[in-house]
């Protein structure tokens, strides 16, 4: 009996908590008023992994990312979303779903850091004290924990009351990450989070991304194949077909990099002719 159990003892990747994808995208299309942006995307986003989304500009990478936490609702002029995005088996586009709650559970990091014009301390707590009504006595502990998670604590612990804009851009981006982490999100979406950063700050963020997947699921939009190789576990490659973005291939990063069509698209991003490497 014990042996039978052991035989059935699930390997880590078979544990239900882990094997169930964090997000499931089915038949997702996004249309602007008179042109399609994304067409029929099907994708599963594995839990506790870093999924990269790569592809040429205009293939709808950022739009795809923004549909995952319904930030697409805010676009003006508005975009029409059809299809499903399932979180815990429930379509987040159902009428009964509260979009604000979804956005608290699925955090996002933008290309350029957006810090609010207040202190570092209040920036970290900006979401959590309002959304989760975190009591004041827990503020300091939560701020410290989030800043530590974002590898920023040692640099700012003596200047928490300073204006957040006094930080460098790389530090601001990590502050934005800390602000998202304070809400304890299940999934963190990142829209080319290092495109405004220098190589050192980029490296700091990349190390963080890899560390984050222990607790969270990360979806990373990138235009840099080298970055995709360095940090992602699986990859979704988008391309432009008939004026709209389509999913070319998805799977483990190494596999996608071997796919000939993706190879072509990715090598174009690297600036070289296809097939050189």
């Amino acid at each position, binding site marked *: 009996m014990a042996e039978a159990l052991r035989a059935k003892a699930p390997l880590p990747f078979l544990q239900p908590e882990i094997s169930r994808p964090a997000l499931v995208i089915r038949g997702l299309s996004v249309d602007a008023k008179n042109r399609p942006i994304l067409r029929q995307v099907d994708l599963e986003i594995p839990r506790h992994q870093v999924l990269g989304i790569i592809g040429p500009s205009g293939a709808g990478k950022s739009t795809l990312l923004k549909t995952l*936490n319904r*930030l697409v609702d*805010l676009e003006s002029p508005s975009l029409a979303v059809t299809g499903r995005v399932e979180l815990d088996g429930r379509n987040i586009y159902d009428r009964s779903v509260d979009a*604000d*709650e*979804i*956005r*608290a*559970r699925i*955090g*996002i990091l*933008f290309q*350029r850091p*957006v810090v*609010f*014009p207040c202190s570092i301390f209040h920036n970290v707590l*900006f*979401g959590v004290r*309002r*959304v989760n009504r975190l009591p004041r006595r827990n503020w300091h502990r939560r701020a410290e924990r989030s800043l530590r998670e974002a590898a920023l604590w040692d640099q700012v612990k003596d200047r928490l009351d300073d204006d957040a804009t006094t930080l460098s851009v790389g530090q601001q981006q990590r502050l*934005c990450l800390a*602000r*998202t982490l304070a*809400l304890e999100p299940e999934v963190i979406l990142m829209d080319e989070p290092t495109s405004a950063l220098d190589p050192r700050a980029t490296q700091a963020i990349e190390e963080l991304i890899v560390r984050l997947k222990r607790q969270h699921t990360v979806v990373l939009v990138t235009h840099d194949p080298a970055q995709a190789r360095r940090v992602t576990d699986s990859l979704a490659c988008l391309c432009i077909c008939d004026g709209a973005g389509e999913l070319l291939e998805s799977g483990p990063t190494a596999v996608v990099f071997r796919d000939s069509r993706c190879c072509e698209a990715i090598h174009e991003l690297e600036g070289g002719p296809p097939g050189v490497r």
Partner: protein
Amino acid sequence: MRRLVDRLFRLATGLCALGALGLLTAIAFTLVARGLPALGRGSAGSTVGASLGLGGVLYPFLGTLLLVMTALLVATPLATALALLESVYLRGGARRALRIWLYVANAVPSILFGIFGLLFFVMFLDWGKSWLAGGIVLGLMILPTITVSLAERIAALPTRYRRAAAGLGLTRSQIIWAVLLPQSWGGLVSGALLGLARAAGETAPIMFTAVVFAGATLPDGVRDSPVLALPYHIFVLAQDSFDPAAQIQLWAAASVLLALVFGLSLLTLPVRLRLSEEARNG
């Protein structure tokens, strides 16, 4: 040739500025020079008997202050609500309609507000002449100015703040309180200041609704409780201007009105300085 045109243009601009500045300085100087001596005289030179202090303009001064503050209290919350409606909640046609309505309301002559106040508050509600009626009418009059000023400031806020706050899961009302209002209240301040200066100087909206020339001090209720007010005081005294005693009071009233508006804008100066600094750095 191009440099000549450039110089001529600069000369013309400078002359215009000097002219405007000179005119304003001359008016202010005349008012102060003629008004200051009158302010010290108390009621001795007064022909109207009831007035006391500040050369007879103490109660008109207090009355105007009361009217203007009431107008601000009425207009500020309404303007905030309308501005949020315009810039956050409404879209498309309804938003355009509200915007047009605001500009039209801003262009309505002030006497029409006075007539409305007379028909509605004084006659229909049977308040008689009342400071509250005057304050509300003035508040409605400056409402579009404050609303447009605030709404434009909200519209000018970078969308990245709204997006970042929404990305954290804040609801729309939380975004309003945490992001939009704290970053745009400068618009409210400057709009209120513009409106306030206008409200302090208007005669038409209050002459049928809120003020008398003599015989009132501070109100102790709403019904039939008029106040004295500086612009109306000036208006009546000016019709009497052959009487030298009335003339003295006229100058006193005018310089006090000028000082009031100047003082109120001085009061908000620190706020406005900080805001313009933020605007430069932001």
